[in-house]
């Protein structure tokens, strides 16, 4: 018995030789980048106003997915009222532009800051409770923002919403047609992707993963749980706040129907279908959402709710990690430093590729 397990242990040790994994599938990787580039530039070669409009929606939903991914995918908190922050971004822009003469550039950061403030206000009492209670509380919060949008007429224009601000511009170039918004929305998606990816691979990201996996163990590792949950909430809210402003400009109106529970549900579906934690995954989720919502719905009418909930159910049951699962891997540059410890040299450790 003893011999057997000693032999097993030797085998395990031999198998687990420490290496920096070589960069895999380079061809596939470049193929992927090329495909993404072609897809992202599609509105330019497809032309017209329909495609740029759709692609802008995809970019906005990609951003929504990326923001909510921080909350659900990184920190494991189910947020059913996320679109409230999108609403805040939109209404802040509309108010700033209509009544205070602000431009989109000035209003966007204000909207983002107010979204973060709102997320802290709602997060503070809610993040202490169990995960399932949190879901319900965020649902309630989303509901409050929705009804506030309907009823605080002086701030939100009520059912009719707010509209009629003057055309926004960048460097003297006005945002007149959908193709003008597209680079802006896409740019936001790219920034959101880079920043959230960077966070994921840092101390904050590790803390979030720990909390998601096991709160008791995270506490034992010395991670301040409530504070980091609050960070996840606040970081997530930034992106919805920014995207909400662009959405308002694009639509030329902000009104309550865009921020219903249904929308928040779709945002959750985007993250879970795409792949919790995965940057590419949730962007793909956003793209799929727009494709289904735009194209399927023109043929099937009200079936979109049925289609989405069935899809979400199927993914949770059959592929819980989502379409593009996130595989945690420490970055190669870090592993290289792990191996370069001068105290040890490289004895006993193989180190392919430089």
């Amino acid at each position, binding site marked *: 018995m003893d011999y057997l397990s000693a032999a097993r242990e030797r085998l395990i*040790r031999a198998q687990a030789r420490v290496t920096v994994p070589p960069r895999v599938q380079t061809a596939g990787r470049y193929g992927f980048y090329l495909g993404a580039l072609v897809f992202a530039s599609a509105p330019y070669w497809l032309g017209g106003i329909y495609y740029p409009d759709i692609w802008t929606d995809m970019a906005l939903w990609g951003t929504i997915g990326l923001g909510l991914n921080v909350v659900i995918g990184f920190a494991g908190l189910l947020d059913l009222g996320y679109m409230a922050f999108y609403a805040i971004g939109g209404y802040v822009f509309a108010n700033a532009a209509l009544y205070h003469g602000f431009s989109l550039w000035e209003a966007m950061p204000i909207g983002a800051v107010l979204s973060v403030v709102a997320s802290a206000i709602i997060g503070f009492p809610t993040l202490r409770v169990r995960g399932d209670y949190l879901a319900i509380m965020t649902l309630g919060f989303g509901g409050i923002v929705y009804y506030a949008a309907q009823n605080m007429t002086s701030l939100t224009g009520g059912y009719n919403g707010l509209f009629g601000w003057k055309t926004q511009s960048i460097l003297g170039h006005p945002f007149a047609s959908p193709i003008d918004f597209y680079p802006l929305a896409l740019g936001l998606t790219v920034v959101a992707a880079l920043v959230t990816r960077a966070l994921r691979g840092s101390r904050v990201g590790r*803390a979030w993963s720990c909390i998601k996996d096991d709160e008791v163990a995270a506490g*034992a590792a010395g991670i301040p749980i409530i504070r980091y949950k609050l960070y996840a909430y606040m970081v997530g809210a930034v992106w919805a706040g920014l995207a909400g402003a662009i959405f308002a400009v694009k639509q030329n109106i902000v009104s309550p129907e865009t921020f219903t529970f249904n929308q928040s549900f779709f945002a959750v579906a985007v993250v879970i279908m795409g792949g919790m934690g995965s940057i590419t995954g949730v962007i793909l989720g956003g793209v799929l959402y727009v494709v289904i919502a735009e194209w399927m719905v023109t043929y099937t009418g009200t079936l979109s709710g049925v289609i989405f909930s069935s899809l979400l159910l199927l993914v949770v049951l059959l592929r819980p990690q989502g379409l593009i699962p996130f595989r*945690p891997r420490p970055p190669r540059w870090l592993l290289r430093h*792990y191996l370069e410890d001068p*105290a040890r040299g490289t004895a006993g450790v193989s180190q392919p590729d430089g």
Partner: protein
Amino acid sequence: MSANPTAEPLLRVSGLTVAFGGVVAVSDVSFDLPAGEILGMIGPNGAGKTTVFNAISGVIKGYRGEVRLLGRSLRGRNAQQIVAAGIARTFQNIRLFRSLTVIEHVLAGQHRRIRENMVDSALHTPRFRQAEIDAVRQARAILDFVGLDQVDPGARALSLPYGLQRRLEIARALATEPRLLMLDEPAAGMNTAESIDMSRLVRNVRERGVTVLLVEHDMRVVMSVCDRIVVLNFGKIIVQGPPEKVREDPDVIAAYLGSESST
């Protein structure tokens, strides 16, 4: 009348009582743990050993009595504040993070000491890189120390064999740079050779200046490493003293015979 801190033991548990509903799991437990000692805590299944750990480490907050670290009460502090105060622990049913790799576990344990703020993290500034490189070097040293030097640092922690998972939990706890390390059955499910390795590791931990509170069913481990032993039965301390005394104590023998010990 606060005492001279050097006169205080590192850990002082006095009158600790924990009840779950009507069940009193720990009742009036008091013991001192001076710095530098390895204190064993043994007792039959359900005696309340893990519950004592949970109270000390802040997993359970509603207890009566006092837990003091160098004279300062830990009452009302949460788990993370207790880690900050210098107490780390492992879990009886291994609790590793399912989505983290081996090295990330140690980095998670270093959380409080890695100096990077949100902006550094978001932009991967040079300060971020330097902080991560320093952290990784330290993580390497800790992994070497617990005997995980031959393990792929980029592997998922849950893919490790059981014995190595226990070592990784110890590495995560050590990464918080504790004064006191509490180990909950580190040798559970190990064979003789592995338990001897584990005993050696526990002694090495003490050599590094870390005080150890050890819960263990494996008597070979307990008797070979502990300076003193506390015996719990039905939530109460029945004996405490050096291993030789505890080994011979009729109450201890009765407790184990009466309740079917696992060794």
